[in-house]
């Protein structure tokens, strides 16, 4: 793994306050999820997962068809679809539109897709003001930090951190009461909503048969973002498309429960086109940006393409024993947790962070909770194989490759395996107790790594096969 990855993991593990914050926040989310998908509350939970997986599989395997259907229906309802291959094209579109309309102020609701392309930075670089309106994202924007978690972006911050951030950036007296902090944000952001020229949102689902964008939230900031300004731009990855509005009956039952344990989040918006004739409010212009940004790289592999089924609920993060220790900022890209571990190497290439697919004990808890049944451990294992194949091609990691070559040879030559076992047992200290330290030259590599955290078992006097032979 890279030095950076190693360093970030170690420093997060060493920060006791952060460990407690991550662990308790994820525990809450995990427990609420479990409560709300229990047999007596959602008896058809497993069936819904199977159906959701089948719907996503079908949509991805026929993606071009559904994108085109989506586009036709957006246009039929008075909206417009723009396909963008990367962040530059997205910002070019937004900047171009803003210029044409004389727009200066943009309000944004939460969208991991826009984090992926650093949209705010690009827009601000060109003189637009783009304000995050989700409370957690707003705090992060002021602090110039990345989200810590897909659903709970400021999970790592305390009320004291928030108080300092608000005092520093908003020039308000230091306020540590959470309700009052929320009220401060509400009042600042309300002004922005009402003055904004453009509202930019993400989309949880793109509904092909309706040309509609579905947005799921608790605060109301996405509703305001998409209803108050005269222009609404929804930015979403191409993989978000689902075939029919009726499929939402399946997906919506899974999304909020998996994310926060709520049966439904407070607001579920189904938006299609600008306001219709006679409607009193709503935007005059409605755009949907369909973003590739590398998603087409994940499509060809028939097994790994299931990574694109993700509905960004965050359940895998909350249940992952690794995420719950190393937190969101240890990950090399905007997406963290198990889903981040499988999509990052596919978007960025395995050499971006070769250690990432290995930063997992393969416990399988993630796959068990994924509402769309992505087999995350399977994809991790395939990525591990990809990393090693790339290393072999580039002639890195030759020692490890050699070690496993020897392993395979030894394990197919039983007498050699036996002998190797006897030699190792003979060399190790044998007072019968578990081994705390070993002298040089043994305390290197994997042995040293093991011993840094725990004792080693004492080699037994006889192996099983010796004992068996002597029965």
């Amino acid at each position, binding site marked *: 793994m890279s030095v950076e990855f190693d360093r970030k993991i170690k420093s997060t593990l060493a920060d006791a306050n952060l460990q407690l914050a991550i662990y308790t926040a994820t525990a809450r989310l995990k427990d609420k999820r479990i409560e709300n998908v229990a047999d007596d509350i959602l008896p058809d939970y497993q069936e819904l997962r199977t159906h959701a997986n089948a719907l996503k599989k*079908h949509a991805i395997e026929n993606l071009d068809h559904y*994108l085109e259907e989506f586009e036709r229906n957006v246009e039929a309802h008075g909206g417009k679809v723009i396909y963008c291959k990367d962040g530059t094209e997205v910002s070019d579109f937004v900047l171009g539109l803003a210029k044409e309309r004389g727009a200066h102020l943009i309000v944004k609701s939460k969208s991991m897709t826009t984090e992926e392309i650093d949209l705010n930075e690009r827009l601000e670089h060109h003189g637009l003001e783009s304000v995050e309106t989700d409370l957690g994202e707003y705090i992060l924007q002021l602090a110039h930090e990345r989200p810590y978690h897909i659903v709970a972006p400021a999970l790592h911050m305390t009320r004291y951190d928030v108080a300092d951030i608000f005092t520093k950036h908003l020039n308000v007296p230091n306020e540590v009461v959470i309700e009052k902090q929320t009220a401060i944000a509400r009042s600042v952001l309300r002004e922005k909503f009402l003055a904004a020229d453009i509202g930019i949102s993400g989309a949880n689902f793109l509904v092909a048969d309706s040309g509609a964008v579905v947005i799921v939230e608790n605060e109301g900031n996405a509703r305001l973002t998409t209803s108050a300004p005269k222009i609404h731009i929804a930015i979403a990855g191409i993989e978000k498309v689902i075939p029919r509005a009726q499929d939402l009956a*399946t997906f919506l039952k899974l999304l909020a429960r998996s994310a926060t344990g709520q049966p439904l989040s407070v607001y579920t918006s189904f938006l299609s086109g600008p306001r219709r004739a006679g409607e*009193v409010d709503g935007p005059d212009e*409605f755009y949907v940006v369909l973003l590739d940004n590398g998603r087409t790289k994940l499509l060809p592999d028939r097994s790994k393409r299931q990574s694109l089924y993700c509905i960004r609920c965050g359940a895998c993060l909350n249940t992952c024993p690794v995420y719950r220790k190393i937190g969101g900022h240890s990950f090399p890209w905007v997406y963290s947790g198990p889903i981040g571990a499988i999509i990052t190497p596919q978007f960025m290439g395995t050499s971006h962070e070769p250690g990432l697919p290995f930063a997992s004990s393969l416990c399988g808890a993630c796959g068990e909770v994924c509402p769309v049944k992505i087999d995350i451990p399977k994809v991790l294992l395939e990525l591990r194989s990809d990393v090693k194949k790339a290393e072999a091609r580039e002639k890195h990691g030759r020692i490890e490759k050699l070690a496993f070559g020897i392993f395979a040879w030894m394990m197919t030559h039983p007498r050699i395996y036996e002998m190797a076992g006897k030699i190792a047992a003979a060399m190790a200290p044998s007072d019968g107790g578990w081994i705390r330290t070993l002298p040089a030259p043994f305390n290197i590599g994997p042995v040293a790594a093991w011993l840094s955290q725990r004792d080693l078992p004492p080699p037994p006097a006889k192996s099983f096969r010796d004992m068996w032979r002597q029965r």
Partner: protein
Amino acid sequence: MSREHILHRVRTAIGRSAGQPVADPPPVRLRIPDVPLAIRISIMLSRIEVLAGKAMRSDDPLAVVAAAIEGKTAIASNAPFLRELGITTLPGVRTCITDRAELRDLCATCDVGITSADYALADTGSLVLLSSPQEARMISLLPPAHIAIVPKERILTGLDELFTVLPDPASQTSSMVLITGPSRTADIEQILVRGVHGPGQITVIIV
């Protein structure tokens, strides 16, 4: 244009050609439980209470609303139903606004927004509001309190029934919103705070 480029990449990756027909998607899955109206109402009422909203049945919604908005300013939607109930002529209530800017300014300053609802979902305690000339978006969004008056026949069992009676919301409206309780966040230390951007108080009167 990126459209052709992206669609081409997609097709190449999944092995399809332009215009190639698509096999049927997995069948739609809608399971509507058989729940009598009286039970739907009682489930709805208890779900809203769990969400820290207020909910009640009433034969005299006018009196309930009058008491709730006493001494406050309110904006009522243009739903004829509200006019028929006499709500739009209560003191402090503005209504019949058809100008977007005027409506927005009122919603931003009023204490209470009053709407009807197109449907309600019993199992989640949700209101379903479709934007229309009768029902504007901002009324249930900007004021810090929201009162919704719902005819009991509109209470459905849940999402499955909603998408059965309304399989194509886009044909009717630019905005359908499911409202499930008061606005909330737990973004800071996972501590729950209500009324972040949307209304912090929600009252549902079933008639």
